[in-house]
């Protein structure tokens, strides 16, 4: 097995290397930021990255499931937007309470995911095209609700959204971060400790083999798109907390951010290899790029895209090198 030995003589299995690289990158960016900018090297900067990207993290978790099976879900950004739209309109119009609206939104997102997963499985259609259709559908549905941004003014909802959870020494996080953390932990548990999770990896490794090994491949595929749909809807709810509005133009292109985070986190787009922890690091790296640019102040936010683009190139090359070296 390919291993890299580090200083202490302990060997790191090859499959952990991409995650490790991302981890080192994050630390390096943080250190460089800390040296360059005053006030950068504080715990709150890292926590702010979590606060500002909790919704992306949740969406990326769902995307990790899908990509691990070798699929892709392009609909997530639109489903996020649809979720903000449904939440805002139901709370603003008929004045439904959040504890009815939020479960309903999660149900709609999961339902959309279930439908797409079923189409992928039952008709053996490329996930790319099915979720592309889902992307247009969900985005279109936003505009049937309204073309304008709808503010959220529900008292409970806004109060919850603006809650500060104080940690030690002046550090604080938002409830969204707690929710995202719970989602990450639950997802990591599912991937590592349940049959569904292992079937996800097996399906991504070789669908044909998984089928012949008697694994429920079809059910697994439907499940990952449902999970992704659920995560997108939850991501939408978190984005509503963050924006306090519903809008059809929210989260445009977020599917690509999520895919980028997953890939930078070391998950192979062909499926079967990767860790959820890598995705967390991927989101953190993306978030930290934005933070650095805001500290820089003079650079336009378009530079974020340029850096993400360069990073993606680097990581795809890295993956390529590893998969080439692993071949016996």
């Amino acid at each position: 097995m390919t291993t890299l030995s580090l200083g202490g003589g302990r060997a790191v299995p090859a499959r952990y290397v991409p995650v490790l690289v991302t981890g080192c990158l994050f630390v390096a960016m943080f250190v460089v930021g800390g040296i360059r900018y005053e006030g950068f090297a504080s715990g709150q900067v890292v926590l702010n990255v979590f606060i500002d990207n909790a919704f992306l993290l949740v969406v990326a978790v769902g995307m990790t499931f899908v990509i691990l099976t070798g699929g892709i879900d392009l609909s997530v950004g639109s489903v996020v937007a649809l979720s903000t739209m449904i939440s805002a309109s139901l709370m603003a119009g008929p004045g439904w309470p959040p504890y009815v609206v939020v479960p309903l939104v999660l149900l709609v997102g999961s339902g959309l995911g279930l439908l797409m997963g079923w189409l992928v499985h039952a008709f053996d259609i490329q996930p790319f095209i099915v979720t592309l259709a889902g992307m247009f559908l969900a985005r279109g549905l936003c505009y049937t609700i309204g073309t304008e941004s709808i503010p959220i003014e529900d008292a409970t909802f806004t109060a919850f959204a603006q809650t500060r959870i104080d940690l030690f020494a002046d550090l604080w996080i938002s409830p969204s971060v707690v929710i995202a953390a719970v989602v990450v932990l639950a997802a990591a548990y599912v991937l590592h400790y349940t049959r569904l999770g292992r079937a996800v990896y097996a399906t991504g490794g070789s669908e044909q083999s998984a089928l012949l090994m008697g694994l429920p491949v079809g059910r697994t595929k439907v499940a990952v798109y449902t999970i992704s749909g659920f995560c997108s809807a939850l991501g939408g709810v978190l984005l509503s907390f963050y924006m306090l509005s519903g809008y059809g133009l929210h989260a445009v292109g977020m599917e690509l951010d999520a895919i980028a985070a997953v890939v930078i986190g070391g998950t192979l787009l062909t499926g079967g290899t990767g860790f959820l922890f890598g995705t967390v690091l991927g989101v953190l790296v993306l978030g930290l790029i934005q933070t650095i640019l805001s500290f820089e102040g003079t650079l336009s936010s378009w530079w974020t895209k340029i850096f993400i683009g360069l990073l993606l190139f680097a990581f795809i090359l890295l993956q390529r090198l590893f998969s080439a070296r692993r071949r016996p």
Partner: protein
Amino acid sequence: MAMATPAPVLRMSGIGKQFPGVRALDGVDLRLLPGEVHALMGENGAGKSTLIKVLTGVHQADEGAIELAGRSVAFGSPLEARQAGISTVYQEVNLCTNLSVAENILIGREPRRWGRIDWKRMRARARELLARLELDLDVSAPLSAYSLAIQQMVAIARALDVEARVLILDEPTSSLDADEVGQLFRVMRRLKDDGIAILFVSHFLDQVYEISDRMTILRNGRLVGEYPTRELSQVDLVAKMIGQELAALDRLHGEAAAFDRPLVEARELGRAGAIEPFTLTIHEGEVVGLAGLLGSGRTEVARLLFGADHAGGGRVAVGGAPASLRTPRAAMGHGIAFCSENRKADGLIPDLTVRENIILALQATRGWTRPVPREQQDELVERYVKALRISPPNPEHLVRDLSGGNQQKVLLARWLILEPRLLILDEPTRGIDVGAKTEIQRLVAELSGGGMAVLFISAELEEVLRLSHKVAVLRDRRLVAELPNGPELTTDVLMETIASGGRT
């Protein structure tokens, strides 16, 4: 004194299966007795694979009945068959190489505690199962870290974990070396003693005679009969499989002819980590055999000569002039064709017809702007379908519906149509039946008679000897000897050369 035959654990009767344009199975019976190894014999395309797929729930039979332990069953999926106690190890290792060894053995029935996978118990159980096969592996390493042979053993360990009543081994030995085959047979005998019925499929007749108690022979999707192995001679078996007396194939060439027109000359050609620098001359009309064990560098030599890998050093001359074989395209330009061992991964496009697959390489050399006229296509394809006896002889048939041997012939036809000067055949007869094997061997002899040079790679030494004018012996990624073929060159001599590394 005949012992009372125990009741069969599995009985298939009157099984029929129709694919578009092909009647794959027609009224086939099969019964498996507990504690017996039962060989399923037949040429490629005889219906063995289809029968196994029906038995394991991959396909559903159109007609006929299956009884397991006296109860009528019908499997809708491989999962159902497995749950009923029918475990299968397929010819191509069907495992997930990205997962750990332990997972590959136990996935789908991982030991759990309150719904949570108990990794510790899982690794322990995996080690236990591997110990039954006398294997000691790092069960938490990914399967991709191990060789194909080990992966095969892992597949068997997986099959053993289930309370298997029937174990199907579909060509389990095709990628194993002699020691590993011995190990497998020991395991099979032990399982037999446990009362498991084993269905064994192999093209190696010696292995079938060594391990099996009984055999069922199929031909063209029909049942020929069921026989106790010790009552059926090998000659009779082959005759029943191919439906005609097999003309014993002697050496196809007379005395080694003198070859004086070198076609491809490799000087100190090598590639670090793949093959040590070697020097080899292939003349026009000459068949050069490459002999050596699995992993000795046979395929690497072929890939270098075809430009599929870059040489690290050395020179190649084609027809006397220095040539640069840096890409397959360049090699093809010099009239070199490479028919690879992996017909599935390299080359054949299953959803195209026989005609389209055959014409592909010719079209590629002409470029897309100059399509090969349909008339010419039909004529060429017709000729090769006939010459190679591709069955069914219908050029419009989809390649995916053809048997392995016939797919191999289609691939061969594709390269032959280009009229190469050097044809590299990497294990062209691996995993195909006696009849098709003989045809391919005869074809090689004919081609070289017509002036084509052939580099012939095969794991079967008899075959190499039968066909080659000259045998190059490889060992540990080094070309150790070059032996002219003649009456004094026997398989024993070859084996000694491989074993001693040419130091005599």
